[in-house]
């Protein structure tokens, strides 16, 4: 094998959003003719890195070398022109255009400046045959299933790519035979000298196809490894935090043995997602949910909060069986949820901090019992002070706050109705270190006051610090439950990795 040449190199790339450092001094080396897996937990910065690399986002600092030339792409079009094409995580095609138009948008075969539709459709047909897709390429894309659309997106990337092909979670909606087909094409391209960046959270697939692995965590590079030299356990260690191993088990908020059970999940399942999950949360106990992305953490939270309907099993809450048809039922019972997707499911951006805090309380009072503005202001001021929300005043639109402060506002929203069970889905994701610690302290003090919590987190260190017990999920099923002396980060990691 000849020595591979460096195609793309990122040096000390940083990307800052207001209040968040999404990427911190990230290096990445990409060689011709290799499949390079880019790994990391949710929020580690993979997608941001891809966007910076391909011109969809401007970097804040650092350097990008393409074929040893210092360059930075002003737009995805510029990157494509240079020979870097990208298949983004969500299918980013145009449902209203035909399959052929989607495949060749911007690169249509032309004669005298006019698009040759027939030629384009023939080429499209041929291209898709590589993926064993024999479909009508003149039909609008919207007519096809997500899996087919995903393959078309990949085929577009393949057709465009001269040197670098970036695949961001391409296999999420493919079944195993489609995945193998994709891998065949990837191997073909690799042998032709194309450099492929492959992002996924399916570790099996990483080992099937990758030559080299770069791991990101919290926006920083953890390391670059040859896939063959990196055992799976060490990979997970790198993804979830290497320093964990040295951590000793911290004294968690232990629950008195006599504490009553508040929440009992009895073998619950949701059609198409989690199955057969049982767990209990006692009064004043914090229970952690651990597992990789896609393991079913978020789905459990959603089921308990009444977002997704149960297909099996039951939820007992305070001794009674709950029938949840919608989140409002859960709120009425005394259950609250801070969702993982803060921006889209948590905050109402243009509304002020005060209005965001008031939402849940006002909803519970009913709209015709309006809370006087004066009282609202007092309440908002109380929580701004109590949770140390950094803002000049309560009337600032919440979208102008940093991630950590937004999270505190959402916490305040639920504290205002004093729920019995507070579900926190990744409460510390994407927020800075200071706010991070404050939120952890808050969780502890809430437990001491008798509130029960169900918390998911990718940061095991964090879970171990406050949880009375940790439930480990894998493949949307419960694997084990750890508490007391066995509840250590390495143990949890082992439970996540096995299988």
């Amino acid at each position, binding site marked *: 094998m000849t020595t591979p040449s460096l195609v793309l190199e990122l040096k000390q790339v940083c990307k800052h959003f207001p209040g968040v450092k999404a990427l911190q001094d990230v290096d990445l080396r990409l060689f011709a003719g290799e499949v390079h897996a880019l790994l990391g937990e949710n929020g580690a910065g993979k997608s941001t890195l891809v966007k910076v690399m391909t011109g*969809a986002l401007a970097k804040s600092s650092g350097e990008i070398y393409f074929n040893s030339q210092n360059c930075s792409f002003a*737009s*995805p*079009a510029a990157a*494509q*022109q240079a020979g870097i094409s*990208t298949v*983004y995580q*969500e*299918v*980013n*095609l*145009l*449902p*209203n*255009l035909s399959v052929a*138009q*989607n495949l060749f*948008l*911007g690169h*249509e075969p*032309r004669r005298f*400046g*006019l*698009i040759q*539709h027939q030629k384009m459709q023939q080429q499209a047909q041929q291209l898709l045959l590589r993926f064993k897709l024999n479909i009508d390429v003149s*039909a*609008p894309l*919207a*007519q096809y*299933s*997500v899996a087919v*659309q995903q393959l078309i997106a990949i085929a*577009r990337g393949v057709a465009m790519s001269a040197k670098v092909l970036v695949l961001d979670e391409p296999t*999420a*909606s493919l079944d195993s035979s489609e995945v193998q087909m994709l891998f065949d094409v990837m191997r073909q391209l690799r042998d032709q000298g194309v450099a492929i960046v492959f992002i996924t*959270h399916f570790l099996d697939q990483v080992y099937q196809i990758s030559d080299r692995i770069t791991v990101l965590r919290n926006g920083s590079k953890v390391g670059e490894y040859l896939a063959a030299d990196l055992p799976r356990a060490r990979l997970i260690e790198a993804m979830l935090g290497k320093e964990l191993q040295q951590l000793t088990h911290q004294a968690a908020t232990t629950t008195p043995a006599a504490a009553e059970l508040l929440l009992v999940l009895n073998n619950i399942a949701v059609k198409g997602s989690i199955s057969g999950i049982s767990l209990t949360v006692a009064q004043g106990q914090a229970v952690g949910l651990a597992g990789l*992305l*896609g393991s079913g953490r*978020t789905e459990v939270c959603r089921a308990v909060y009444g977002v997704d309907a149960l297909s099996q099993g039951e939820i007992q809450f305070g001794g009674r069986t709950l029938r949840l048809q919608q989140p409002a039922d859960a709120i009425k019972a005394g259950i609250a949820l801070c969702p993982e997707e803060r921006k889209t499911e948590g905050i109402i951006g243009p509304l002020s901090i005060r209005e965001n805090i008031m939402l849940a309380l006002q909803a519970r009072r009913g709209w015709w019992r309006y809370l006087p503005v004066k009282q609202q202001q007092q309440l908002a001021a109380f929580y701004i002070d109590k949770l140390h929300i950094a803002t000049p005043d309560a009337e600032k639109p919440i979208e102008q706050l940093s991630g950590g402060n937004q999270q505190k506002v959402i916490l305040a929203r639920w504290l205002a109705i004093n729920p019995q069970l507070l579900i926190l889905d990744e409460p510390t994701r994407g927020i800075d270190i200071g706010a991070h610690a404050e939120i952890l302290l808050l969780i502890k003090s809430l437990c001491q006051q008798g509130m029960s919590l169900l918390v998911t987190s990718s940061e095991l260190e964090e879970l171990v610090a406050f949880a009375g017990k940790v439930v480990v999920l894998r493949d949307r099923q419960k694997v084990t439950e750890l508490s007391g002396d066995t509840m250590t980060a390495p143990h949890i990691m082992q439970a996540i990795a096995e299988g």
Partner: protein
Amino acid sequence: MMSVRYLPLWITAALLCLMFGIGGWQFDGFASLIVVSNLFSDNAFLLIVALGMTLVIISGGIDLSVGAVIALSGVAASLLISQYQWHPLLAFALILPVAALFGALMGVLIHVYKLQPFIVTLAGMFLARGLATTLSEESVAIDHSFYDAIAEFGFVLPGGGWVGASTMIFIVLLLLVIVLMHYSRFGTYVYALGGNSQSAELMGVPVARTTIAIYVLSSVLAALAGIVFTFYTFSGYALAGVGMELDAIAAVVIGGTLLTGGSGFVIGTVLGVLLMGVIQTYIIFDGSLSSWWTKIVIGLLLFGFILLQKLLSRRTALTTAARSTAHG
């Protein structure tokens, strides 16, 4: 097999034939080439404006300024010709680039500052209408040999219809726009922007250039419509074309173009304008109905078509919803 995409188009075409049939059955001389050719020549300016509007709406935007641009270009042309003794062609050669600049300005505002096309073109509408009125509050008559020649230019159809300069200009423009929309990259980009501008950008569509070009085209076509309107009236008037942007939008929607963008055909818009024209002709032939009945029928048609759009887009929404839930 008929695709759902073409359904509104077929419905409009069927309605047009139906109206024509009813008219022909009730009145002598309704189903004749004279009526058909008059439909084109009486509505040439609206047809031309509606071409541009179709482009804008397919791209997911809207252009409210076109009615005012028609007035401005008409007034400017008649002033230059009558008061300043310019040759009409010279006047047109000045007006069209200025209109292009006007459209470019709106496009830049829409793209660079991410402003709503609705509000930007509303501002453009006030600006153009105000400018036109400042130039002349009175109607300005045009008396020039070139205009007389234009009026005589054309040929007679068998059966007595007349194809004049305005109709010919429209047909040339129609062909150009069809080629542009379906055989050029620009056309695909317009559809792409209307489909999903974010995806389009990620797929490498030059969004800035395309957006600006769309509004330039719309303004230029509106200015051309204003010029064609002066062929029709032999004058320029600052209050001409009031509400014509709305007629154009109505024609586009009746022609089957989705107001949300991404889907539609120029030819549908032509059918839309003709349908509106046939309804008007029918009412004129009838003689007993108030001409406002045209508006009532168009109102009802619009309701019907937006309802149809909603039903069709709900079908596509189902497939897109399935895509967006793919998150672990």
